[in-house]
């Protein structure tokens, strides 16, 4: 009887904490500013919530079956949530679907050509100019007397 009492208390505490975390995820999804910030709310507190619920299931029915299944659930959640968040975030950034005005700093801006992408700069999407501007700047080459022939073949990597 006394053993059952603390088990119930533990269940209440864990499930309540998990529910609060899931609620926070929902509220954050509404309140945060853009896709990138909402991803934090959508993917992260929920991982801890799932861990807490699974931990409670393991505590209340501690058989080998539930323990192993619980561990594999936690493993897959912890491995897949960051990767899906990364993929959505990357797609959002590359297509410019984010608010640059809430970014305190953006060190990725203008790096698309470094990453080997043919996308225009996200700023162009934000300003409504969706016509792809050429990423390889041709203008300085024309004024450069050192390189007279600027129509090099793509495979030519001589510098």
């Amino acid at each position: 009887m006394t053993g059952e009492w603390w088990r119930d208390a533990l269940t209440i505490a864990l499930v309540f904490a998990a529910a609060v975390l899931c609620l926070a995820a929902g509220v954050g999804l509404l309140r945060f500013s853009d896709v990138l910030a909402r991803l934090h709310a959508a993917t992260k507190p929920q991982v801890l919530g799932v861990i807490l619920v699974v931990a409670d299931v393991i505590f209340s029915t501690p058989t080998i079956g539930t323990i192993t299944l619980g561990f594999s659930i936690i493993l897959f959640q912890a491995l897949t949530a960051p990767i899906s968040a990364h993929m959505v975030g990357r797609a959002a950034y590359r297509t410019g679907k984010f608010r640059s005005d809430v970014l305190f700093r953006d060190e990725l801006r203008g790096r698309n050509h470094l990453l080997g992408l043919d996308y225009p700069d996200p700023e162009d999407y934000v300003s409504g100019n969706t016509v792809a501007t050429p990423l390889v700047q041709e203008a300085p080459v024309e004024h450069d007397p050192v390189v007279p022939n600027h129509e090099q073949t793509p495979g030519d990597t001589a510098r």
Partner: protein
Amino acid sequence: MPQQTRDKHRLAGLSQGLLALGLLLLWCLLWGSFTPLTIITGILVSTGVSFTFYLPGVELSGRVNPWRVIVFFVVLAWDILRASIQIAWLAFAPNFKPGNAIVGIPLNTRSDLIMSWTSTAISIVPGSIVVDLDRSGSILYVHVIDVHSEEDIQRFIQEVLDTERRLVLAIGSKAEVVRVNEQHALARGRKNR
């Protein structure tokens, strides 16, 4: 030189074996039992999967420090707990002001394995998502939530580098450990000055 290539082949074979062993363990976890039947079917399935979905061999460093692995996972669990509460509080905070940043963080490591594990680890921890990464320069571009000043950003970069260091100390090669420790000493010296 032949000795080195032989070592490399041995490590590649070892990593394939470890992968198959991991699949076997996963199979048993999913069935929830370790009976001879699940183990035999698991061996069949894992060898089948490793041959049909062949992946290039992961470059393992061949060095594992069990104590450091435990430290890494304990700190990771603590980080998840701490940061989940922080994000949950942020969602409810009445005077919440958006302030995010995308920070490029140059890692010290040159190993693909360490880089991908570091990015997974900092992505599990709430408050940071890897948006993009530059593999040739080992630069992670991380979206951080709730930063408002230069100090916040510096603190976050230090956290990521600490995560990387813990990982390298756990499973990195000896050369990587030396490099990471040097960088750590440098950073510490800069802070104290």
